[in-house]
């Protein structure tokens, strides 16, 4: 596993919209290698500043969707001086064609890697930036492994899920392997 991509929120204009000139820059954003046989958001060992792995391009369309999550990071970060990065811990790479991630329609954002991203922030972002209602987008909070102590991630997908499900799935946190 390796270091994910980081999106510097300074690319956003005052209204929070990604500036047109940032398009090329956004294309260079990278996602972590993602493999369902591995933990999508492993705990970062103490003393380890970065992870090493392959990097892959992430769909620009997908980036539009979690734009408000970046904003949330910016808002949280307004109290401090440094900018806050967001790391997508699973993009559209390393997964089979049967997975919505494969087509760039879904991303996972892990809480171990993005410790500031609470469920409340994720729900708020989903509400503001994703399609709502029947036929809309789907999101859930899911454990990284069968051991809840290994943390959890948020899964966001643009299209409805199974049973044409839409919206942010209620608690409890979805177990891994379901």
């Amino acid at each position, binding site marked *: 596993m390796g270091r994910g991509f980081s999106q510097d929120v300074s690319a956003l204009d005052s209204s929070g919209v990604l500036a047109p000139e940032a398009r090329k820059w956004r294309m260079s954003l990278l996602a972590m290698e993602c493999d369902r046989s591995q933990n999508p958001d492993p705990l970062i060992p103490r003393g380890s500043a970065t992870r090493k792995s392959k990097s892959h391009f992430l769909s620009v369309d997908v980036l539009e969707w979690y734009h408000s999550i970046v904003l949330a990071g910016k808002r949280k970060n307004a109290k401090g001086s440094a900018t806050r990065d967001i790391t997508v811990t699973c993009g559209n790479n390393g997964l089979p064609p049967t997975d919505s991630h494969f087509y760039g329609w879904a991303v996972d954002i892990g809480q171990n890697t993005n410790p500031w991203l609470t469920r409340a922030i994720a729900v708020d972002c989903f509400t503001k930036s994703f399609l709502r*209602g029947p*036929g809309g987008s789907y*999101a859930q909070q899911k454990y990284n492994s069968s051991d809840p102590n290994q943390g959890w991630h948020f899964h966001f997908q643009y299209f*409805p899920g199974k*049973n044409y*499900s839409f919206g942010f799935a*209620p608690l*409890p946190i*979805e177990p891994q392997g379901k």
Partner: protein
Amino acid sequence: MTRLTLFPFLVAALLAVAGGVRAQDVKQKYVGKSSCAHDIQSDGPDFGSLLDKNRNTYLINRPFLRVKVLLIVQLKSKNDKCGVIKDAVAITSIAKEFQFSCFDPSAPGDVVVGTRNGNDTRTTGTAIEAWRIDIVKQTFNKITNKVSCTSESYAGSDDGSDLVDVAKKRASQ
């Protein structure tokens, strides 16, 4: 002493009556309205699943600050965003969450919904309360049978199935 003994029962009876009134209030407030009516919207996101594709009904969980409402909504077509609310139930405990994947062993082919504590880390647990859904009448019917609910992931692509299909499949296994 007698008064002290009776007090918990009186409180329980009052709470039960209050709960019943609340349930009636919920039905009066929601049933027959459009799911998009301005006065019944929540700041948070709905969560919904296709209940019955033949009748184009959806189960929609709408969380408010102090109450969570579960709706049966019938859309005119699959492309609609709004529909008519056919029935509604509510829970007022912040700790509890509606669950769409519940199982009544006495009627395994029925669509059953229930509630569980949101902080429950188990995959499957006993429902705190449960309702059987009458697909034809499009109503919730509270049941007291022992029902188990499973945390289900709906991530992935829609395969055209609905909750009726899921219940039938579960019953056949």
